[in-house]
């Protein structure tokens, strides 16, 4: 095996796989799906290693591969939906909802978004990317990112009405 190639690839995986996995887990909401997602993105990256390495584009490429795979139309959401049902709390919040409850409600609501919407939220609120960057990564217009994120947030609020309340108070 070519020494440079293997060493570099190994170094990259050792250094970055935990972070990639975290993002993948947020995108999919499922451990196995997340591992699959990272693995498949790394395989694509390995196949183009030399040119990516030379242009310093490795990390960006892996991530783009993950996002695209996650939002592509053929990817089934069944797994995510199952998780959703599991996590749906008996009572969604209420007046005394504390932060932990809110997050629980939030997770359930997240799981019911489309993969595309969920991906955009993860990129915006976990990766802290701008709407413009998200648009570029996913190959859609900025306006579309903006409206999808807005719509997703509305759906989260519907799922947990108390959130609208906290928002008004806050």
């Amino acid at each position, binding site marked *: *095996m*070519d*020494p*440079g*190639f*293997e*060493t*570099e*690839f*190994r*170094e990259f*995986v*050792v250094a970055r*796989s*935990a972070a990639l*996995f*975290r*993002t993948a*887990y*947020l995108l999919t*909401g499922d*451990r196995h799906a*997340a*591992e699959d997602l*990272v*693995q498949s993105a*790394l*395989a694509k990256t*390995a*196949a183009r*290693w*030399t*040119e990516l*390495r*030379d242009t310093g584009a490795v990390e960006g490429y892996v991530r783009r591969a993950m996002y695209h795979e996650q939002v592509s139309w053929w990817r089934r959401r069944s797994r995510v939906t199952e998780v959703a049902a599991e996590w749906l709390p008996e009572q969604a919040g209420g007046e005394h909802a504390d*932060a932990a409850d*809110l*997050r629980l409600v*939030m*997770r359930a609501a*997240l799981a019911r978004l489309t993969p595309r919407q969920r991906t955009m*939220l*993860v990129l915006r*609120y*976990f990766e802290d990317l701008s709407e413009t960057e998200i648009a570029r990564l996913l190959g859609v217009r900025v306006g579309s990112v903006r409206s999808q994120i807005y719509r997703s*947030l509305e759906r*989260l*609020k519907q799922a947990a009405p108390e*959130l*609208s309340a*906290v*928002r008004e108070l*806050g």
Partner: protein
Amino acid sequence: MNIEDVLRDTLADMAHEEPPPAPERFLRAVAPRPRGARRRGMALAAAAAVAVLAAGTGAAVRGMSGERLEPAVSTGPMTRATGEATASTEPGRADVGVIVKEGLRLADVLRKFAKASGRPLEEWERAARNVSELGLPDYANGSLEGFAFPGVYQVAPGPRPELVLAGMVNLHRGTADQLGLVEGARRLGRSPRDIMIIASIVQAESSSRQDMPKVARTIYNRLGHKPPMALNMDSPLMYALGKYSVAASREDLKSRSRYNTYRYKGLPPGPITNPGRDAIEAALRPATGSWLYYVEVDPKTGATKFAGSRAELERLLTEREGRTRAGS
């Protein structure tokens, strides 16, 4: 707290609720397979252990203790020096490492090895012709010239010459894979062999690393010129004649060798040096420009300028003349 903050917190929480799997999980599953590296056999793995350090990498030296048959060299993207590699400073190694500079001809490499190893030159020459043992890529057309990758090589005590030379080829392959030689050549509409021939000329013609992409572009511009334009370069001719002069004499120009690019248009039939990584990279990624000429305007510093027209060329030649006269 608004919904965006709750979402941020939720995501941050979720991100840490599942511990990431060990990196090995992914490495096992996606072992990268560079093209052409699949079945190279034990001989080549051993050969890789012969090479101490690839030129121009400054990479860490590992695996020389011999308990595992691991490649000894990482040709990774670390700091890149120009010119000579320095031998490892670890005791017991520097003294056996032979430095092979970028841009040497094979004949000179073999002479160097013969001297350092105490083995007769004929033995090295025989090994260099023993191509079935060298692991050459197809595009080498069964000849080692151009593929004896520069670096620091251990020639004494005694690995067989074939093993040392195979180690050089192995480093070439590693570099070629990293640079994407085969795909890059396709993008340029050339064969990998053409790229290596161009790289070998770039190596010989450039006085600095910075000039390499421009020299490469000049070669491409000449090759693609309409009406056809000869390369008119001295270095291939000097190679064919076994000379080391910079400028061809009137007598030299009469040579009927296919390496005489004044007489024959297009590339010479094979590499004329053993280029390093920078030169190969320059041949794969030439600079953008319409240059057809270049002139070493200051022979003392090697400063080179590029020209796209006869008129510009004339100006550069005048500049050179001025500087040479001022300097003498």
